[in-house]
């Protein structure tokens, strides 16, 4: 079902109300005015007919021969008709009308001596028929006076009234539309403020409202926004404190571990093995904490100002060049895709994908930077066992090791590397996924929208 917007509903209701009101008024005006005019016309018609009938009666009584001339003279306009019914004779003057087409009841009343008037349509012309008894002649005098003029007036009046009703209905719709838009303007402001908050601008507030109807809304909104801002600040501070509190002992641990590691030869036997375990686990633990702090940072929006245009191929080459061990060649489209990004995060994405390949598949065998339909596409292929289709979505979840459980060796990383990849790529408006590499192994694909050149 078609659902109208609030604004249109208000406009329609106002329009219908206005139409109803004007229609009622129009009908009332029509009834009063047409009734009055008809009565006036009837009265004057009847009076005229009475005068005429007296003249006819006089002429009949005196028996003068000028009856025909008199009747012709009485038919004042070309549309009016005068009929004189006498026993065995009907005299007609003016517009010719077949006497049988007159309502018999009207003639009957006239013959019986009762004056009567009726509105008729005779041969397409609206007329007022007045019947008067002609007692002296035992007949009846009938005068058909045209009402074309009155009919025209009625037509004009009715047209005017209908037009008024329609225009007022339309005006009602327009007024409703305008008024609701005005009334909803604070709502538009509210929407804007709310979407600014949703977009990360926690300082967005509604301006103070002078209208007492709107004050509670603005106040409630602003109070909610204040609370949200406070909450976010508190959370950020907490995250900062957690970060600080965890990093300090970790610093002590990794450095003490480095000292111990250097002297592992001095501690033989069981204690030496335990020491080995301890120091290697401390390094992994430190990486995990650092990754965890990075992935849970709440102040990430603050960094969005550091976006800059980056040549993805150059960035990937730099990251590879900075890694120890055998460097894999980068296969790049020319010209290489440019993205608008945060260099640090993109470095991290590339490094984590390479780390992942190193750890689980013996290293990357192919790295490609391509440009595909407006997307910069990074492909990192490895020659390992690949990722089963059922696990391909889960592999980007935090601490998901299911996919690589079989290969869990001494150094499994933080368990957050791919989750960080997914999060950083998402922050750039892109996607990360894994596919089967043609010829075996896994292909990790990252796509980020290309920057406008």
């Amino acid at each position, binding site marked *: 079902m078609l659902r109208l917007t609030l604004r249109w509903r208000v406009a329609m209701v106002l329009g219908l109300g206005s139409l109803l009101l004007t229609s009622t008024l129009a009908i009332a005006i029509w009834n009063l005015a047409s009734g009055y005019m008809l009565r006036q016309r009837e009265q004057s018609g009847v009076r005229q007919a009475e005068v005429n009938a007296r003249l006819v009666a006089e002429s009949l009584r005196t028996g003068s021969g000028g009856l025909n001339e008199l009747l012709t003279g009485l038919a004042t306009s070309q549309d009016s008709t005068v009929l004189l019914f006498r026993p065995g004779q009907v005299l007609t003057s003016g517009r010719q009308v077949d006497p049988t087409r007159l309502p018999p009841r009207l003639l009957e009343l006239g013959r019986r001596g009762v004056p009567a008037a009726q509105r008729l349509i005779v041969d397409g012309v609206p007329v007022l028929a007045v019947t008067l008894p002609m007692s002296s002649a035992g007949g009846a005098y009938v005068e058909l006076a045209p009402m074309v003029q009155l009919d025209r007036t009625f037509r004009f009046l009715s047209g005017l009234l209908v037009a008024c009703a329609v225009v007022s209905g339309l005006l009602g719709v327009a007024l409703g539309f305008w008024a609701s838009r005005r009334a909803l303007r604070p709502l538009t402001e509210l929407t804007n403020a709310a979407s600014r908050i949703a977009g990360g601008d926690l300082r967005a507030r509604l301006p103070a409202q002078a209208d007492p109807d709107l004050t509670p809304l603005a106040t409630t909104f602003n109070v909610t926004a204040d609370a949200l801002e406070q909450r976010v600040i508190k959370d950020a501070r907490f995250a900062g404190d957690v970060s600080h509190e965890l990093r300090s002992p970790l610093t002590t641990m990794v450095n003490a571990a480095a000292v111990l590691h250097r002297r592992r030869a001095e501690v033989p036997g069981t204690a030496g093995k335990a020491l080995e375990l301890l120091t290697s686990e401390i390094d992994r633990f430190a990486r995990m904490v650092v990754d965890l702090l990075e992935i849970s940072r709440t102040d990430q929006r603050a*960094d969005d100002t550091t976006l800059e245009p980056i040549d993805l191929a150059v960035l990937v080459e730099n990251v590879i060049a900075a890694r120890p061990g055998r460097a894999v060649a980068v296969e790049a489209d020319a010209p290489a895709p440019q993205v608008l990004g945060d260099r640090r995060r993109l470095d991290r994405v590339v490094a984590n994908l390479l780390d992942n390949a190193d750890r689980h598949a013996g290293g990357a065998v192919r790295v490609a930077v391509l440009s595909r339909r407006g997307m910069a596409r990074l492909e990192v292929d490895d020659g390992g066992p690949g990722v089963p289709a059922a696990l391909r979505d889960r592999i980007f979840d935090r601490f998901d090791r299911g996919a690589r459980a079989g290969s869990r060796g001494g150094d499994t990383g933080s368990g957050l590397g791919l989750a960080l990849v997914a999060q950083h790529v998402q922050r750039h408006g892109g996607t990360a996924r894994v596919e089967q590499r043609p010829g075996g192994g896994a292909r990790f694909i990252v796509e980020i929208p290309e920057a406008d050149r």
Partner: protein
Amino acid sequence: MDYSVLLVEDDEHIRLALGLALGDEGFAVSDAVSGEDALRMLGQSAFDVVLLDLVLPGVDGLEVCQTLRARGDLPIIIVTARTDTADVIAGLEAGADDYVTKPLVAGELAARIRALLRRRGGGRQDEVLRFGGLEIRPDVGTVHQSGQEVHLTRTEFRLLVELASAAGRIVTREQLLQRVWGYDYFGDTRLLDVHIRRLRRKVEPDPDDPTLVVTVRGAGYRIDPDR
């Protein structure tokens, strides 16, 4: 040759562990527990580099950094547990040459310190680089702007020499980070941006409208040789 390091850190455990680990890396480490302590020790004896925690009781790290920078160009590496952009930038603006984030590993820190303390220059004897009114002597480490000597920190000077040696060619951010700071991994834009800003403040006639050290968008920086 052993470099002497002053480690300013209020957390006793970190101080001890880092002291041991840096000792293993071949540094002579002294430590200070507060800003006041650090300033006093720096007044008494000479150090090659200061490792400065930003969060200190009393005189805080930023203030110590500013004070030291006002005294001279002693290399300073700030150590921070907070990775917020604002903290890092504030430290670099206060005059630090580099920064490391906790948990820092002694081995990595050692590489950073060595990069920072590498012999300055590398230019031929009596080589003079000139750009307009700017005169750089890489062998003696001096810079003159219109005859007036400009005091640059070691890092600012190396940054300027790297740009000047390219003689108008673009030097990428990665190249600068690697040559000046010895970064062999993720380059940090903030570090370079702040140093470029500091350098411009000292050598540009109008730092807000740089005409000498020019940004090449998306590529890096270059010195305009026509100046």
